């Protein structure tokens, strides 16, 4: 933690970056985002197991972009998000550097290739627990799955916290806001909620880096991570691709292979 603060101080003092986006202690024993713009404030930064938010979401916020070059305290999924955003032409390499706190100090990754090398060395698989939860779903009957999701989605308020928290939901105009014609029903009724959640999952397929912020953001606790992990797993098994591995990459859903699986097509 001291190494992180020291690094932040140095980056700000030397004007290498204009802001360090990191974590500070927040309410309820959780951590919250902190925007450090003065070296003197760097002492407020913390990094521990309560620091969960994917801070890359702020890289897409105009008010934060305007602050200048940013150093971003990054967790494993944050690094992949940075690469995915880069691959989608949303980030300039010169606009940020990533700070990765570790056991022996803090690593400063200032190029996409450095981030790529770091990401390549980390475990990017779904965890054993995540995989077994998906398997549990696969073993459920169709009706059981439908009932499960109908109950979950019936609680959706359409507050769009999932979208707002997601660093990859950066569209300035979301499909749900396209109303000529109205694609997704605005009302949070059962049909509107199903279409909204299917649409969001589909638009994140092959892009989501499984940071989990959508589920953490949901005020009513819908396990949205399940949808994303299912799609991550399908993209990997069907196309052998993973999001957020390289700053220049073919997106799994805007490319193809002539021999993609098609056993379900007549």
């Amino acid at each position, binding site marked *: 933690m001291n190494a992180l603060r020291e690094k932040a101080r140095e980056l700000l003092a030397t004007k290498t970056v204009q802001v360090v986006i990191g974590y500070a202690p927040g309410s309820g024993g959780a951590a919250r985002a902190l925007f450090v713009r003065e070296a003197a404030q760097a002492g407020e930064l913390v990094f521990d197991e309560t620091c969960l938010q994917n801070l890359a979401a702020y890289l897409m916020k105009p008010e934060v972009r305007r602050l200048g070059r940013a150093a971003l305290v990054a967790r494993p999924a944050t690094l992949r998000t940075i690469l995915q955003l880069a691959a989608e032409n949303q980030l300039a390499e010169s606009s940020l550097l990533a700070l990765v706190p570790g056991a022996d100090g803090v690593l400063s990754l200032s190029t996409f290739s450095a981030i790529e090398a770091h990401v390549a060395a980390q475990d990017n698989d779904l965890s054993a627990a995540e995989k077994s939860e998906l398997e549990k779903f696969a073993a459920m009957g169709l*009706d059981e799955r439908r009932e499960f999701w109908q109950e979950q989605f019936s609680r959706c308020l359409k507050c769009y916290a999932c979208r707002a928290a997601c660093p990859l939901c950066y569209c300035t105009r979301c499909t749900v806001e396209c109303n000529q014609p109205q694609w997704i029903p605005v009302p949070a009724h*059962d*049909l509107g909620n199903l279409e909204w959640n299917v649409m969001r999952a589909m638009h994140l397929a092959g892009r989501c880096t499984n940071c989990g912020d959508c589920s953490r953001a949901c005020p009513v606790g819908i396990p949205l991570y399940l*949808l994303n992990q299912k799609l991550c797993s399908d993209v990997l098994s*069907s196309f052998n691709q993973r999001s957020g591995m390289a700053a220049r990459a073919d997106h799994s859903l*805007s*490319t193809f292979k*002539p021999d993609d699986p098609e056993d379900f097509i007549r």
Partner: protein
Amino acid sequence: MPDFQPKIVAFVCNWCTYAGADLTGTSRMKYSPQVSIIRFPCTGRIDFMLLLKAFASGADGIIVSGCHPNDCHYSSGNFHARRRWIIFRGLLDFLGIDVRRVQFSWVSAAEGAKWAQLVNETSERIRELGPFAGYQRLRGLGVG
């Protein structure tokens, strides 16, 4: 449900399947009348949202069909579509929506007989599955 006449919506591409379906007609081949064909420039344009809209509007089954691989009028529209279908199909199944209600296929402009067979088989399967009441019941649920 012997009297049940399923509503099937077919999303087809202009260049292959639509022409194939036309050939079915000009060849005087009879097939199930329960299908309503919607013509698109290419399967690449058939957004998954259109499929959801069809279900929400009362479709009991859906056919999505276009040019065979390597035959796309725009070279690769069908390849891109195929990837999206793979993902979409997996997601529908995960959500508990019966994917037997959505039939994907390649039907070329020369395959009038295949089109007739595809529609007949799909319509038979949907007839067996019955009306997609569960989906249509979603309409209006949750309005106070």
